[in-house]
């Protein structure tokens, strides 16, 4: 029982990270209509930006703000320089381009910060013992941070003009366009939001484990699985999807080797795409 609860906690932490990544994937997939393969590497980039600010002696609680801004600037810059010019092409051309972007970002991270494992702070954090369970203080930061971000996202999507336009575009692009929404401007907002959340996902992943240039790329499959599980273009679905995939991966370690956790996300993804391609709660195919 305790073991199950412990796995449940691991799953929630991992699921929170997936959820933050999946929101960005879901929004860009829903609004721009292409699977952004560079999203994982945006997470990596964000995590390393924060590492730089931490290196300057700023606390991580402050560093995330400039890191998120810098990641958003990068995402918008890539969109303006590359993706904007390809918007008239088939979505799959954008997908290939984003695959190239992913490699560019990853090699930049390796060039600027080096290929080795790095951490935000040295030393091992002593976990709290709560009723036989081990809980690391960092996990509380991750879970609370994710909860706050989700609430902020909810307020943004429900109560601001931009947020409403974003949801409208994810629902029906053409209809949104004829009602006079400035689609190019909303696209910029989508990148900003998606990249900022990706940055936080990267920081949380770096906090939970460590920073490595391929950390984000390895998350791409579960993050996409989460976004599809929740229904493309549905940020709330993406959050639920992230938690489901995170929990499923952790509970799977009861029966299979942890090395094959990716297989769980893959299996969920394939079963889902075969039986319910619009996601569990309904969304666009």
């Amino acid at each position, binding site marked *: 029982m305790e073991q199950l609860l412990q796995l449940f906690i691991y799953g929630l932490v991992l699921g929170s990270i997936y959820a933050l990544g999946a929101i960005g994937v879901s929004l860009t997939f829903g609004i721009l209509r292409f*699977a952004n*393969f560079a999203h994982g590497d945006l997470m990596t980039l964000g995590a390393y930006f924060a590492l730089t600010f931490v290196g300057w002696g700023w606390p991580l609680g402050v560093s995330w703000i400039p890191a998120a801004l810098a990641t958003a600037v990068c995402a918008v810059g890539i969109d303006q320089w*590359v993706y904007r*010019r390809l918007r008239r092409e088939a979505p799959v051309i954008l*997908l290939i381009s984003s695959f190239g972007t992913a*490699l560019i970002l990853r*090699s930049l991270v390796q060039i600027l910060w080096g290929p080795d494992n790095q951490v935000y702070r040295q030393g091992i954090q002593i976990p709290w013992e709560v009723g036989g369970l081990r809980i690391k203080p960092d996990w509380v930061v991750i879970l609370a941070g994710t909860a706050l971000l989700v609430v902020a996202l909810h307020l943004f999507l429900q109560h601001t003009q931009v947020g409403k336009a974003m949801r409208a575009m994810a629902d029906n692009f053409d209809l949104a366009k004829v009602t006079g929404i400035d689609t190019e401007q909303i696209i910029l907002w989508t990148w900003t939001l998606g990249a900022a959340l990706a940055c936080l996902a990267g920081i949380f992943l770096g906090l939970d484990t460590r920073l490595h240039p391929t950390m984000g790329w390895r998350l*791409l499959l579960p993050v996409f699985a989460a976004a599809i599980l929740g229904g493309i273009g549905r940020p709330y679905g993406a959050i639920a999807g992230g938690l489901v995939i995170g929990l499923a991966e952790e509970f799977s370690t009861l029966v299979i080797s942890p090395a094959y956790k990716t297989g769980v996300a*893959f299996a969920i993804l394939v079963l889902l795409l075969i039986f319910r391609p619009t996601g569990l709660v309904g969304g666009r195919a």
Partner: protein
Amino acid sequence: MLSYAIFFLILVGIYSVLALGLNIQWGYAGMFNIGVGAFFALGAYASAIVTTPPSPEHLGGFALPFWVGFAVAAVVAGAMAFLIGLITLNLRSDYLAIATIGIAEIISQILKNEGWLTNGVRGITRIPRPFRGWIPGQDTLLYLGLVLLVLAGVYWLSERAYRSPWGRVLRAIREDEPAALAAGKDVLQFRLQAFVLGSTLMGLAGALYAHFVNFISPEAFQPEFATFIVWVMLIAGGSGNNRGALLGALAIWGVWSASELFTNRLPPQWATRAGPLRILLIGLLLQVILLTRPQGLLPERPPQPVGDASSLSRASRTPEGESAG
């Protein structure tokens, strides 16, 4: 210098087989496979296990002749593609792409973690090079001959396939799936055949690679080198055009090798950054190609209908013809 040229051409030949395999999947049929490296690795490991001398470190070595290894490599990669294709080929191209990331990741984890099968991260050594000692000191030249022979066969096969009715159906599925369905074509069946054929070629390329370098480990099949560069080759050369795939393999491998000359001149403290710098260059090259020449150096040229059909279509296309008649 000559030995460098032979070395260079052998790798171009191996990458050409990979690019031709990917061309059947993406260029002909529009299926997006990001697991190229996985099928490449499967072929390399399959042939290595079959042909190495017995070893306690991994499954086998069965010490069989190299051509058996090549055949097993092609069959193993093809069989894996068949299983994967059955469950994923109904997916839309972007979803298929995501699914193939998962396949590549799972296969790479198996190579790393199943030591009894692959010797894990330590890899498989002593993979025999065929024709060693036939002409003293010239085994790489003989091996180049073998690579070119395989490449010629693969090219001939791909061209035949492209011009055949089978290739035409694949193009129809790529361009307009509902129309192909309405014409009574079994879309899933055709996709599965193209996916298996392309992956078989990738497996064969893996065997060619393993017997050339004599040592393989999971490191050699990272997505940057085994998947990404093959995609850039095909896009640069021209998707759908087999000669484009060959030209792309030559051009991009040329750029890749030339970039090494450049990074060798970097100051020593930059030495560890040379690899990523070269990947960065190839990534930027891909973006430039997509933005300026998305059809590639040699654009696709499907065979035109001949005989009556061509004169008919020409007549209907030119208004002068109608007014004259």
